[in-house]
């Protein structure tokens, strides 16, 4: 595997495993249209939608009584982090001329501790991939710095959850896998129930 990693280094723009072509515009296409807006506006709106979703998710999760002790404390901290990400992105989005993505409708159905934890692991492993997929599209250095700062917080949270269920910290190996917008949204299916609206 390592040999293929290094062998792939022959061409600068086609680098390494698990990558999407940087700047590929299909990255930003949902259902054939540019739903979230062009350029950084689109990135910020997509990230904002994701944070709305995550904040709702942890709000619902933390209303259940499936968890206690260390895990309960951890999940509350994650909710606080997600709310903070939400506030930052909402402020950023409001400053943009291209419109702001509206709060989506969500639906969660937690039936047992085991099921709830499994869904949480899945959801939390979506965030890092989603941010990573957007990073090379970002034009503004400040927006990039902000996205990167959120990206590894999501990664830390995902790995801690992976530990709780006996998964690897980094299930995709040494090079984390970026998700396109399409892939990210697919992972929210059945939970994020409205289509994104920007206005």
């Amino acid at each position, binding site marked *: 595997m390592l040999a293929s990693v*290094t062998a792939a280094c022959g061409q600068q723009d086609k680098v390494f495993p698990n*990558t999407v072509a940087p700047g590929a515009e299909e990255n930003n296409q949902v259902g054939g249209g540019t739903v979230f807006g062009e350029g950084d506006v689109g990135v910020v709106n997509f990230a904002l939608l994701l944070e709305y979703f995550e904040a709702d998710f942890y709000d619902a999760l933390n209303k259940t009584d499936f968890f206690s002790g260390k895990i309960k404390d951890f999940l509350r901290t994650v909710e*606080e982090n997600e709310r903070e990400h939400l506030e930052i992105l909402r402020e950023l989005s409001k400053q943009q001329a291209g419109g702001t993505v509206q709060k989506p409708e969500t639906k969660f159905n937690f039936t047992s501790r085991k099921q709830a934890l499994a869904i949480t692991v899945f959801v939390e492993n979506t965030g890092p991939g989603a941010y990573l997929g957007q990073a090379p599209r970002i034009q503004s250095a*400040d927006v990039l710095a902000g996205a990167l700062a959120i990206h590894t917080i999501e990664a830390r949270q*995902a*790995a801690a959850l992976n530990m709780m269920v006996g998964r690897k910290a980094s299930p995709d190996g*040494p090079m984390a896998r970026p998700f396109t917008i399409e892939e990210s949204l697919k992972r929210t299916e059945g939970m994020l129930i409205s289509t994104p609206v920007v206005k």
Partner: protein
Amino acid sequence: MRLPRARPLPGEPPSAPARLAGIEMHATTRADFIMRGVLAAGAAYGLGAVSPFVSRALAQGTQYAPPEQAGKSDVEILNFALTLEYLEAEYYKRALSAVSMRGEVRELVKEIYDNEAAHIDFLTGAIKTFGGKPGRVPTVTFPFGSESAFLELAQTFEDTGTMAYNAAGPLLESKAVLNNAGQIAQVEGRHAGAIRWLRGHNVTDGALEGVLSFQEVVERVDPFIVDSPRSFQEAKPESGL
């Protein structure tokens, strides 16, 4: 064992004047209208008018490119990262025989070692692709003792690596390299989160990852490197750079 703490850990916003000075410096190099817009609201109505979340984000946004690291080429940045990866890989490799660990810790350490070894191969290849010369393997030294002491230093290394990659991100010229650096940064962040969880420590220190300058990275890891490579010596405070 304890590392000398160079300065307050990231997350503590600098004073308002420092923050504004940082922005001033930036305005001459980059046009960042969105964040600047948020800042303008703060400047007009006072920083207190900006939500504390946003001012923290701003504080971090202004920190990512201290003057001494602006102007480094992608190859120089990758070589700096390579030294860190060599240090990490060797730490875990030695620990696997030197430290008595619980089963789940050992599993994680094996995973982390494999990842760091792959990062070395990746960075070496990338540096050559860009026509650079990969830095040599540094000679390192670690104090090994209990599992708990081992994990404490592992956390320091992983936190440092995560923040170093995050700081480097916006400095990279090539979007392809940025993509790959982001992939590695995420994996370092995952290591840090997993180690912290197994230690019973907070998984995050706040909602935003901090960043470290090259100099701060060197201050944290140099005690474990016997023969610092040139990129590290140049980043030391006494070098006057």
